[in-house]
């Protein structure tokens, strides 16, 4: 059941929302929480009920370990550390088994020319997200930063359906007080209006914008055997915008749905393609993952406290882990490595004290992100190299329709032929990319829009038109969110 499915929008969400506030209205607050947990587990099981025991076992296990860690205030530090290590290792082993075992085996087979059979396990949905969220919980319990919650509250923290599948990755301390706050138990027209507004914007971003770029990116990466220069750039830019509008659209929907329940989830995107440096980019892109990597990997590694070399080393490790988290493949690892290198260069540049012109800074940052995304998207090295080769040494081939007007360009090696035809219709791709640049760079982002939200006629028109248009667009098309694979 996807956020952009009619079963979710017209049946699941209204029923759960009504039942939740009805139970709270009747002062059955525990029952309301049970309802949310059960509904969330039902939502999770919709894809494959076989995954349900996995998340349940993971929850029981982490709740038990977390409770032990927060109870043992007087226990020796070494014993607590061993318990924490055990908990973290178990979580990572679960993730490793399902997500990385085949990657590991195939590398062993390549290096030692062996033929160990692959496990070919299906990746349980959301495993990366709920594992990281619970590792954070264990570490916070170890640090004495958690209170003792009952299992119902803990279950709600892990399973709350708006954020269960693809984040944002939440901290218990930003969720638990909200679930406990009695004011949040009453239906709020203000939150409903703002939440529905945000949901409609996110739905439109996903269904209308991101899904429009998908066929062009797919054609360039997966179908075409060769790409000319324009096709290669159009392919990489299509993917760059598809990923952004898909994931930020999903996040807007998650934040909007949570707001219907009077719960505020942390922001995950803040116009990342407006970033003026790679550090700035990571403060704007998948912000809750960046926060996790900073708080639970970079800082525990020593952060910037042990000299310059160690700091740079820690940055590299953190981003390589970030790459591995996204997927079991060398292209993901290389993508993380590239970002680590970029962060290192950014830090060294900062030491020089030279301020870069903002336009140049944006240009470099955006293009770096765009080029690095090629490795993130490609399903093989060959496909990544094919796209990059086209971007940097492909033939310049303009659409034949321009041959009369621009014939003088043939003196400079420009050819006239199919233009972007191998990945999609020329005019649609060009208009699509221009609009995407305008939306991503010149307009307020959805967080800013929802902050300023007022119940005025133009917002009414936006919600009604965007919602209906997006629903009409997706009802017959099953389009999953890209981050469900991570």
């Amino acid at each position, binding site marked *: 059941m996807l956020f952009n499915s009619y079963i979710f929008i017209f049946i699941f969400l209204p029923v759960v929302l009504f039942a939740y506030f009805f139970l709270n209205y009747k002062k059955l607050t525990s029952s309301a929480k049970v309802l949310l947990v059960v509904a969330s587990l039902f939502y999770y099981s919709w894809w494959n009920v076989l995954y349900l025991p996995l998340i349940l076992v993971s929850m029981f296990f982490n709740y038990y370990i977390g409770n032990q860690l927060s109870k043992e205030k007087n226990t020796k530090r070494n014993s607590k550390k061993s318990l924490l290590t055990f908990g973290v290792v178990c979580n990572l082993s679960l993730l490793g088994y399902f997500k990385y075992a085949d990657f590991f085996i195939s590398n062993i087979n390549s290096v030692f020319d062996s033929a160990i059979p692959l496990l070919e396990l299906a990746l349980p949905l959301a495993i990366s997200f709920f594992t990281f969220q619970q590792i954070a919980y264990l570490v916070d319990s170890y640090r004495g930063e958690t209170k003792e919650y009952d299992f119902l509250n803990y279950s709600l923290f892990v399973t709350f359906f708006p954020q269960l599948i693809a984040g944002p990755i939440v901290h218990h301390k930003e969720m638990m007080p909200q679930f406990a706050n009695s004011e949040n138990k009453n239906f709020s*027209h*203000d939150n409903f209006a703002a939440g529905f507004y945000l949901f409609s914007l996110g739905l439109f971003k996903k269904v209308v914008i991101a899904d429009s770029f998908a066929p062009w990116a797919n054609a360039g990466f997966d179908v*075409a055997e060769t790409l000319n220069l324009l096709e290669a750039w159009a392919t990489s830019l299509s993917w760059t915008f598809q990923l952004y509008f898909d994931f930020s659209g999903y996040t807007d929907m998650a934040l909007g749905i949570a707001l219907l329940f009077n719960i505020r989830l942390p922001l995950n995107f803040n116009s990342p393609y407006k970033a003026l440096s790679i550090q700035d980019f990571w403060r704007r892109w998948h912000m809750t993952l960046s926060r996790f990597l900073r708080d639970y990997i970079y800082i525990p590694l020593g952060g910037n406290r042990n000299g310059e070399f160690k700091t740079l080393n820690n940055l590299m490790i953190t981003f390589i882990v970030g790459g591995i988290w996204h997927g079991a493949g060398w292209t993901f690892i290389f993508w993380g490595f590239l970002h680590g290198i970029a962060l290192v260069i950014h830090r060294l540049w900062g030491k020089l004290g030279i301020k870069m012109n903002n336009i140049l800074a944006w240009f470099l940052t955006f293009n770096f992100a765009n080029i690095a995304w090629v490795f993130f998207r490609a399903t093989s090295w060959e496909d990544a190299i094919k796209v990059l080769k086209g971007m940097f040494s492909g033939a310049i081939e303009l659409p034949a329709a321009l041959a009369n007007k621009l014939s003088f360009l043939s003196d400079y090696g420009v050819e006239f032929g199919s233009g972007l035809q*191998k990945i999609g219709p020329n005019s649609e791709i060009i208009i699509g990319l221009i609009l995407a640049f305008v939306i991503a760079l010149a307009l307020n982002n959805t967080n800013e829009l929802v902050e300023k939200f007022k119940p005025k006629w133009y917002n009414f028109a936006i919600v*009604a038109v965007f919602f209906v248009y997006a629903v009409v667009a997706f009802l017959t098309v099953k389009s999953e969110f890209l981050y469900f694979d991570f």
Partner: protein
Amino acid sequence: MGIMKSTKKFNLALLIAIPLIFAGYFLSVYYFYFDNKNDSLSVETYFDYKEALADSIETNKILFTSGSNNFLGIRAYQVEDAFNVPSVNMAIHAGLRAEYILDRLKKSLKRGDMAILPFEYSNFGYTGEPSITLNKYLISYDKEYLNSHYDPIDRLKILSSISVLDLAHSIVVGTDTKEVAEKKVDYLKNINSKGDMLNMHEHDSLKTKKTPFKLPAPITLETKGLMAIKEFSSYCKENGIHLFVTFPNLIKEKAYSTEKYQSYFNFLSSYFKKNKIAVIGTPEGAMYPKSLFFDSEYHLISKGSDIRTADFIKTMRQNKAVISTITAMRTAQ
């Protein structure tokens, strides 16, 4: 500037307006949408032409149907020459899906006819996912089928597959323009009098990768496509029609010799055997090198079509059930 006095009014207004907008949209699509710029017009043109060809034959005949793999695959005129039995190539578009293609074929079949189905794997493995090609065609040209074969929810889903831009285009352009008439003539210029598409030569798109077709999960699933064939087989038995299933022409890939694909091919053969549906040839027997195809893994160029037809005729000659059926058809003429 009108300001709604409270968020409560804002929410109530939304609650009323959104269903009304949906209703208005669906009614507009149902009554005003007409596809004259995509596949629907060509599909309708081909149906008109091919069904007229089939109807004009008074004796028993051989009808081929599937998606476009056979529009450009086995040539009916060569089969007719080889066996001296009138033959028509009824295949049009895989996106019309097995259920509709077979339902439509029933109109052209008479007792004693032979139907050969070289369906694409997308149709063997069809699990009910929506087809924009079929939806647009039904709304534009076959509302009777739309109203009689789908429940209200499915009908709403089909209507919702028409985008706002497509609806606007059809309202602006209208239904009966000179351009439509010209297109119809253009669609038929490469079709012979037996419904085969000819003159397809090498194409630029050979530069595109052709990935192996997607297997259903699990491979042993009785898909909607297979159920449609099973139901059609019962219809054929009840009406004295000789049914044969065969496999589509397809680019040969290494993947098809792997265990996964072989298991799927075995499953298909055992499924047809179990349901007493006669089969001609094997999946591998219909696979050819990439150089014989153009813009899709199913679309043969003319040279490929020649080879495919010759191979298929040879396979038909080796199949006792086919030969005895054809002999009976000839005797009845």
